[in-house]
């Protein structure tokens, strides 16, 4: 018998019992929907992260002072969850010092194209009249601004002269500018004096430029009162902090592909170990955007494995539901089966008819699940400010998988129908 005929027959018998079909499909819908939703979110976040990674510089390597692993384990008596409890703050004495950076610059002159030095004054608010905006103050050196893709909308960059003098000049984000001054005429605010209030400290700055906030850079931010960066000179921050050295620095690799970033990272590690091997509590570790992406993918992988397991259980339950409803349907239609056999249906054509019915039932559930999953995932991605990207391969996989469920759980009832004795089936009341 033709496949098309079987599918048409299956659709008509499913339509005859719509409510029952929908309830039966629920497990499949939930299972497939959950998998598709998480895949869509994962895909969207990864894509956004990739975009923002390239805008931040994919070749950058972060070098930072962190607590030693061995020390953490020792101090936490075996149980280490977030490592918060006994975490010791990095002290000024453990910072990466200027002399180390000078040595580093010399030793890696071939592989390193730039070193980005920056320090922070922490978070605060700028208030002008009734308007205010949250900012975090970051001071960077010449290298920092060279490596940072800051797109100016008005004003000028922070120049070398300002850097040398450690002047309190600042670049404000367009977002904060709009909030504070209620204007999009950014030129008009150049030269304005602003005061950042951070805890009990007050810092004054002169605005020299307004930069465009990169959309993709703000991954998990909501829309209300977003904190944006206020860029100033490194010297200015150091003047306020009175700290020598940096808890972390960013190194920009030469774009040359012959310098492998993994190899470079381990060489940087070896270089800094010379200074830190005597430090009992702290060491220097390196990370790159690549490794962060790897970690993020790993995390997403773990989450999707977890959800997949739950979805798998939903699909299993859904499949059993399909089997149950097919058994009910077959006993209701015993006379029909008997009649079909009397009209010359072979056992295999009866079996095929009911397997296809189960597969069609599951595929419809799968398609509904895909639609719900994609829209749910897109909404979630939107809430995370990420561009929604559905994964085509997982959509195809899901529909195919739901058909396999139909095949698997439909086989037993279909076989039962096929093996019915035609006489008993015809006289069934």
């Amino acid at each position: 018998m033709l496949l098309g005929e079987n599918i048409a027959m299956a659709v008509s018998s499913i339509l005859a019992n719509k409510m029952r079909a929908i309830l039966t499909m629920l497990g499949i819908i939930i299972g497939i929907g959950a998998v598709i939703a998480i895949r869509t979110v994962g895909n969207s976040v990864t894509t956004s992260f990739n975009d923002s990674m390239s805008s931040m510089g994919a070749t950058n390597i972060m070098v930072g002072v962190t607590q030693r692993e061995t020390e953490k384990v020792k101090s936490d008596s075996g149980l280490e969850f977030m490592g918060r409890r006994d975490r010791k703050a990095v002290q000024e004495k453990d910072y990466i010092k200027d002399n180390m950076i000078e040595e580093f610059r010399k030793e890696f002159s071939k592989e390193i194209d730039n070193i980005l030095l920056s320090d922070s004054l922490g978070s605060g608010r700028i208030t002008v009249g009734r308007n205010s905006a949250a900012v975090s103050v970051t001071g960077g050196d010449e290298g920092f601004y060279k490596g940072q893709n800051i797109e100016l909308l008005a004003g000028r960059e922070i120049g070398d002269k300002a850097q040398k003098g450690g002047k309190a000049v600042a670049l404000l984000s367009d977002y904060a500018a709009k909030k504070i001054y209620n204007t999009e005429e950014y030129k008009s605010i150049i030269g304005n004096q602003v005061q950042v209030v951070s805890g009990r400290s007050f810092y004054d700055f002169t605005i020299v430029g307004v930069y465009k906030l990169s959309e993709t850079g703000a991954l998990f931010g909501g829309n209300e009162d977003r904190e944006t960066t206020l860029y100033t000179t490194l010297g200015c921050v150091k003047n306020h902090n009175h700290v020598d050295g940096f808890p972390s620095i960013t190194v920009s690799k030469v774009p040359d592909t012959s310098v492998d970033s993994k190899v470079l990272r381990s060489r940087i590690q070896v270089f800094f170990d010379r200074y830190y091997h005597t430090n009992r509590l702290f060491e220097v570790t390196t990370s790159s955007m690549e490794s962060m992406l790897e970690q993020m993918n790993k995390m997403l992988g773990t989450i999707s494995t977890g959800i997949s397991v739950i979805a798998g259980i939903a699909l299993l339950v859904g499949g059993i539901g399909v089997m149950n409803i097919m058994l009910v349907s077959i006993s209701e239609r015993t006379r029909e089966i008997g009649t079909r056999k009397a009209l010359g249906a072979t056992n295999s054509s009866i079996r095929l008819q009911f397997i296809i019915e189960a597969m069609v039932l599951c595929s419809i559930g799968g398609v509904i699940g895909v639609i719900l999953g994609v829209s749910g995932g897109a909404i979630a991605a939107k809430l995370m400010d990420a561009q929604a990207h559905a994964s085509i391969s997982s959509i195809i996989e899901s529909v195919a998988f739901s058909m396999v469920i139909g095949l698997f759980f439909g086989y037993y009832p279909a076989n039962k129908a096929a093996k019915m004795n035609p006489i008993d089936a015809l006289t069934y009341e």
Partner: protein
Amino acid sequence: MDGKLIIDMNNIIKRYFIGKPNELEVLHGVNLKVYEGEFVAIVGPSGSGKSTLMNMIGALDLPTAGQYRLDGFDMFNAREDDLSAIRNKKIGFVFQTYNLIARMTALRNVELPMLYAGMGKKERNVRAKELMKMVEMEERMYHNPDELSGGQKQRVAIARAMANDPAIILADEPTGALDSNTGRLIMDIFHRLNKEQGKTIVLITHSPELAEETQRIMTLHDGLIVSERKGTGKVAAG
């Protein structure tokens, strides 16, 4: 009687529950011969083995012993798929309870045996419409069975039985669920099929009047054919 033998049954025995304490022999050695173009009746009280014999004739069941050839095909050693093919091509069933498939139009019901025979869509459709015309149901062929009266349903069932141009029409109490006027209409269709198309028809009934309309009446009693005589040809009143 001469002509081609369509049903050739020799010493057919049917036992149920073989080897168990409640073993039961329903047919004790039935001999039955039906020739091409005949319209015969098998009558008998309930419990005489009529249904069992009908299942045997209709290739729904195989005899425990004895020889049965249907339109030249030896049923001995027939496999399940052979029986399906025989039911599909050589036999047209007409049941007392119509047994039309719900959720399918009358026309699709008529197409079903052709579908199982592997006939193409267009061909099937053309033939089914012809058959519907033959039973005067062309105006209601797109209706589902639950929108048809008993007589209409039975007419559709007859059209369906004729779908693959079978060697015999096997009608099991075809008028049993109908009033006498409608029953008359159905019997007239059988007569017409027999006379105009030379279709071999086996009518199983417990009604003596209907049996008299046929050419030959065989009476089954306690699992044996006890008498065989010519029908009077007298048509029962409508």
